[in-house]
């Protein structure tokens, strides 16, 4: 691999992540799903965390049960995503005329987001997530209202969901199931940031994910259960198929759907469950947006009060007025 000349690179010998010896006298317990199949994990969403951007939001699914093992290796990881929106702003002079808002999305994992360290350059899977996110958002933004403008949606994943249980066999780790959860989070957080930026949308789009999971280990005849918001590390028998949707609840529309794996006869049910998950997320999203608006209103009222007091001659000397 060619060294990145614009960054500081690893020592020329190359480094390897540490290999841990098996711990004596500790039995690792695989995390299990304790919530119902139709129950979503608790999530945290807040807008307006980056004041220098037009709109921003932060999304987090905190880790579930924290097992105290005294081990150095983290037992579970949480999902932490930040999103900033810059725009709408004029396109550069040399850009071609566009009657609509040009939306561009960029998804990047932080180098410390996953168990294996990631590089700084966007890789193919991150680009793919960006493309999925763009289709999900394009359906809600009213682009006609912002001709000749562009808008950048930048998502940084500070901590990503894992593809499987870290101590499990290698077979269970692949599959990229963690990406589905990340995409659902990206859709929700980007939607909150778009609203925070004041970009006109037809509805709030929210992301939801559902999966067909096998109830037990190695039961070939088992049909599996459809569970919403799967945490890949919690599913012992493995995930057979998963589906992410970007869903507009009040219009009952799906702007983005991504299904992976072999759902068999369960495909329709899987989509329905994903939609249900999206409706659950939407409740949190609407609450966060409402809270942000209320705070903004309070601030405006506060400013009005302050301005009135200035007129009365209270803190006048603190302010300068340009005259000419």
């Amino acid at each position, binding site marked *: 691999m060619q060294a990145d000349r614009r960054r*500081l690179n*690893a*020592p020329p010998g190359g480094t390897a992540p540490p290999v841990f010896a098996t711990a004596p006298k500790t039995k690792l317990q695989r995390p299990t799903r304790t919530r119902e199949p139709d129950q979503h994990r608790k999530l945290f969403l807040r807008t307006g965390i*980056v*004041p220098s951007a037009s709109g921003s939001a932060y999304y987090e699914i905190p880790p579930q049960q924290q097992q105290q093992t005294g081990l*150095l290796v983290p037992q579970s990881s949480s999902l932490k995503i*930040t999103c900033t929106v810059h725009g709408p702003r004029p396109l550069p002079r040399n850009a071609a005329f566009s009657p609509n808002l040009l939306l561009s999305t960029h998804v990047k994992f932080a180098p410390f987001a996953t168990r294996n360290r990631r590089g700084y350059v966007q890789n193919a899977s991150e680009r793919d997530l960006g493309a999925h996110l763009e289709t999900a958002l394009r359906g809600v933004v009213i682009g006609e209202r912002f001709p000749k403008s562009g808008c950048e949606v930048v998502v940084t994943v500070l901590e990503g969901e894992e593809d499987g249980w870290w101590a499990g066999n290698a077979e269970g780790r692949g599959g990229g199931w963690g990406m589905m959860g990340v995409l659902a989070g990206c859709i929700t957080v980007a939607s909150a940031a778009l609203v925070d930026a004041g970009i006109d949308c037809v509805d709030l789009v929210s992301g939801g994910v559902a999966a067909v999971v096998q109830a037990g280990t190695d039961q070939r005849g088992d049909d599996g259960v459809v569970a919403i918001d799967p945490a890949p590390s919690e599913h012992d028998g493995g995930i057979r198929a998963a589906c992410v949707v970007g869903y507009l609840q009040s219009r009952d529309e799906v702007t983005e759907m991504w299904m992976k794996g072999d759902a068999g006869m369960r495909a329709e049910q899987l989509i329905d469950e994903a939609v249900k998950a999206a409706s659950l997320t939407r409740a949190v999203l609407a609450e966060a947006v409402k809270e942000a608006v209320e705070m903004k209103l309070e601030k405006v009222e506060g400013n009005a009060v302050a301005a009135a007091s200035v007129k009365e001659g209270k803190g006048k000397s603190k302010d300068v007025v340009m005259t000419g």
Partner: protein
Amino acid sequence: MANGTAKPTGLAFSRETFAKLTPAPFLQALLQQPDPIRPNGRSLDDFRTPTINTGSLSHSNGSAVVRFGDTAVVCGVRAEILLASNIPHPPSEDIYDNDVVERLGLLVPNLELSTGCSPDHLPGNPPSTLAQALSYRILSLLHTSNLIDPEDLRIHHGAPPTEDDLPDEGPKIVTKAYWTLYIDILCIALDGNPFDAAWAAVMSALQSTHLPKAWWDPDREMILCSPLAAEASKLRLRDLPVASTFAVFSTGSPLKQRREAESWVLADPDEFEEGVCTETVTAVVMSDGGDVGRIVRLEKSGGGAIGKAAMRRCVQMSQQRWREWQGVLNGG
């Protein structure tokens, strides 16, 4: 006025418009008041109050989130192993101990600004000159301040005595590998003064770093690490240097006489002030055994408004700042 009948009222703009149209005269008007107040409401040598959270990232050996004002920086330290046998040109035995870290490149800091933290740094492009310069400054500061004991980064192995060794000698200690620390700094929100924030984040992340106990396993010919948190050792830092940045706003220009110009030193500038000021001073101070801060680095760029006296005042303020930071860094 277009109709010409109405008596033209004095053209008055609101504060925001004034700041947007002519930022420099706006700042000057505020600073020329008898009791100067900066646009952000701070006085001239007021720093923003920092808050630090450590250990919030689960996949890092050490991590910290530092925020002051609207600037927020996340730093994660991740340790990987560099095998001594993989080093292409191993340094000679008699290398000065403090140079080992620099010679082998065991510290790899990288600052990423293009996380959408400000409209000036959008992703999709290679890192800007500013990001590259800041990464390099952090690296060179880590090297020159000799914060990390190279002994902490070495993984030793006591080789069993061979036949030609003298029997009364103990087992020979060889360094089998080194820990390499990847220090990834992500700017989440930027409102001026990225260097101070990034440096503080690096310091508190390194301070919270724990390295697992590692040993050479001769049977498998590899380094193994103990998974027990109780056996991990904390990375020791010899000192906690603190960086303080000042921006200098000056009314001087090359066309004017020097003495006609007025200048003000603004501590911890925000984005707006950085845009207007051309001259900056960065002082990095660390303890000198006791409590008085010793200068590790002094940087001044652009302009000619700062003289000896002002420079001394900057250093004094950064020493003051160093005391404030010690409480925050050690408490967090």
